[in-house]
């Protein structure tokens, strides 16, 4: 019972944050509806109920997109093993899990850096460079050049190297000359995007023939990551398993190994850590290398396995979302995995919502921003729970 209570207090703020953000999102849907706004003066109740109805439709589409349609699932259960029906019933939840894979990787990556006290917002860049590494490995060693397992291993290694190399730059600069990692990682995100653009529009080796679009060749012709589900129509490959194993490894590293302890010590109090003989510079560089390696591994696996193509915008909003994932998950691997799954559900549910109701999926970015704000200001969030109208004391340190 005590454990349950502990768990409850741990997830109180994250759960509350996500719920409040979703509520605000609903308000946002209602009050950006031109028809609702137009009717607000003449018939406020009718307009509002129209808006609320639309928001409810949107969220029910989001729910069905995230978990699956209860009706389809019922049919599948009744069908007694019809593969096609089962594939249709399970597709949404499977796709939601697939959507959470990049978030697990990059979320874990930035968490390691955050734990060491480094604000690595270069997750997007490191993920992109990992994708570059993975793509090059797939093109060079795939399609029968080396046996498939070795090709997959090389894709992973190249991804790790690509991400780690990209993270080494800000890490080294921070450790040796004190350059702010915030600025350098933001800049490196942009450079990574331009670099991919350069690669996929200038090299015959990479660019998709007839070399008009700035995208790479189809990678599924070179390396195919094996699926893990018995139903072939559901595309869930080994990358989710690798992601979970990585989470376990990171957890062990951070909380059970000496090096991880040193990194956390450096993150909590750099001066004290130095006094205890922990090298600040080495800690920073190690943390950044590990952080970049994990993000890069994710980039390589997702580029080769899920998207199957390299393009300049491959990172999408993964970099942003991963920061939210890391902060909401309390930079703990278990929390990161759980939050990434929630955000993956939102991501895939949101895309169905966009298709069915025309509510843009970009709403999720807004929700993520709110969630980050709530998580970063727990006082604010708990204040909402207690009494939103009570004025809080001006300063805590009185």
């Amino acid at each position, binding site marked *: 019972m005590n454990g349950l209570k502990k768990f409850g207090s741990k997830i109180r703020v994250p759960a509350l944050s996500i719920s409040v953000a979703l509520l605000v999102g609903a308000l946002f849907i209602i009050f950006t509806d*031109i028809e609702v706004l137009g009717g607000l003066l003449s018939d406020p109740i009718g307009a509002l109920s129209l808006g609320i109805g639309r928001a409810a439709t949107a969220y029910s589409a989001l729910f069905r997109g995230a978990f699956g349609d209860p009706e389809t699932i019922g049919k599948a259960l009744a069908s007694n093993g019809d593969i096609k029906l089962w594939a249709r019933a399970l597709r949404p939840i499977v796709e939601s899990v697939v959507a959470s894979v990049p978030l697990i990787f990059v979320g874990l990556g930035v968490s390691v850096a955050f734990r060491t006290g480094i604000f690595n917002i270069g997750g997007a860049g490191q993920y992109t460079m990992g994708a570059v590494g993975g793509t090059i490995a797939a093109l060079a060693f795939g399609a029968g050049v080396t046996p498939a397992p070795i090709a997959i291993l090389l894709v992973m290694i190249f991804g790790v190297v690509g991400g780690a190399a990209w993270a080494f730059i800000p890490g080294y600069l921070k450790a040796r000359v004190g350059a*702010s990692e915030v*600025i350098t990682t933001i800049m490196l995100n*942009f450079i990574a995007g331009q670099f991919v653009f350069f690669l996929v529009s200038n090299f015959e080796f990479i660019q998709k023939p007839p070399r008009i679009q700035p995208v790479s060749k189809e990678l599924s012709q070179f390396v195919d990551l094996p699926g893990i589900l018995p139903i072939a129509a559901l595309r869930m490959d080994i990358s989710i398993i690798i992601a979970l194993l990585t989470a376990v490894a990171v957890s062990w590293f951070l909380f059970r190994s000496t090096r991880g302890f040193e990194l956390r010590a450096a993150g909590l109090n750099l001066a004290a850590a130095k006094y205890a003989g922990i090298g600040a510079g080495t800690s920073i560089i190690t943390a950044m290398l590990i952080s970049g390696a994990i993000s890069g591994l994710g980039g390589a696996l997702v580029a080769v396995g899920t998207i199957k193509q390299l393009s300049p915008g491959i990172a999408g*909003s993964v970099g942003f979302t991963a920061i939210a994932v890391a902060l909401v998950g309390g930079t703990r691997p278990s929390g990161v995995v759980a939050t990434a799954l929630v955000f993956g559900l939102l991501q895939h549910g949101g895309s169905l919502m966009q298709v069915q109701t025309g509510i843009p999926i970009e709403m999720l970015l807004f929700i993520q*921003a*709110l969630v*980050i*704000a709530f998580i970063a*200001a727990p006082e604010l969030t708990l204040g909402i729970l207690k009494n939103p109208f009570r004025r809080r004391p001006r300063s805590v340190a009185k």
Partner: protein
Amino acid sequence: MTKKKKPVAAARAKTITTAPAKRTTSVGDGADAQQQLVASRVRAGLFALFTLLSLAITNGSAGVEGKFAFWVDKIGGTDVSFSVPVILLWAAVTVGFGAMAALQFVRGASFRWRLAIGLISPFLVFALLARLLDGTTANLTVFFTSTLLYAIPVGIGALAGIVSERSGILNISVEGKLLFGAMIGSIASSITGIAITGPIAGAIFGALVSLFFAWLGIRYKVDQIIAGTVINIGALGVTTFAYLRILQPYSEFNRPIGITPIQIPLLSDIPILGPILFSLSPFFYIAVGLVLFFTYMIYRTRWGLRLRAAGEQPNAAGTVGIDVVKLRYRAMLIAGLLAGFAGSYISLSGTGGFGINTSAGQGFIALAAVIFGAWNPVYAFGAALIFGMTSAATTLLSGLGVTIPPQILLSMPYIVTIIVVAGLIGRVRAPASAGRPYDQG
């Protein structure tokens, strides 16, 4: 904000002026002086390297003619063209770099290398263009005007960054405010049909967003980087959402009254210079005015002194009775006004109105300009102009079908920023307390 200048305050302001941009001579002891000396040696080496490089290019460009043209009276009117041997241009650049390397080595840390780079870069861009164009005529009026116009959002955005960071708030949210300013500016201008409402509404909304940021950062002591990330993500989400849901289907909300270039009487009639400098968007002249105004405000008024004190030593400032919290809120308000105003330029200057992610990272380039310009408004605007030149060169070259990967040029501002932050060509120092929350005890 005190407009009246008191002699004592001014004198004090003057002494502090030198502190952030400290210039020491090559002689001196102490770790700081040593470090500066090393940095200046590195710079001298770099300049020497550039000298050798440009010497090599000079060697290889015999016989190539660089052809340039200017519009004389207005863009698209009569033009005057001239051609220079490329070898001559590169010889000039070589001599320039050589002189810079020598001066840097002899004068050490006291050499004003920022100014030198500012002086040589136009020549360098010319020479590079001439070499790359390889005989095609390039119209420079267009090149220069697009350089100047590019500096508007980046320059004003940088100013916003400077004001907030001088007060001690690390502000990475300029990008988000640009986006908000662009969207709100476009909507306001479309609804009212009055051109001036666009920039005003953009600025006001930018200020509101900025106050929200300040509220998170000051009241709840949310890490300022996280708060900035919140604004940036939120801005991208909200503006894209609103665009797809309202502005696209109901395009009457996204048909702003464009703010067209103005012809300054008499001055715009000057041949060649007129079309470049005096027929620009009114935003440009306002930007220049703002930069000069804030340079004066930051370095020469009591408000500026207090602002810098809050950014450097908030505890000391609080001890002498300055209300640091209020001052930071006000600085963020001003920064928001500036950034929102800059954003409105993006959607109001052209004909297209607002588009998805229309600021395209210019807010981050503004951040780069802040650092490159060492938190000084004039230098930052200069940096914005240099970044503008690379962007204009990219456009010009791709328009002429010259095959140089534009991605390399487009990455230049980001690469330059990393080099500057790393202190490889000269350490810049951020306001000491930027990014730290302040506890008013």
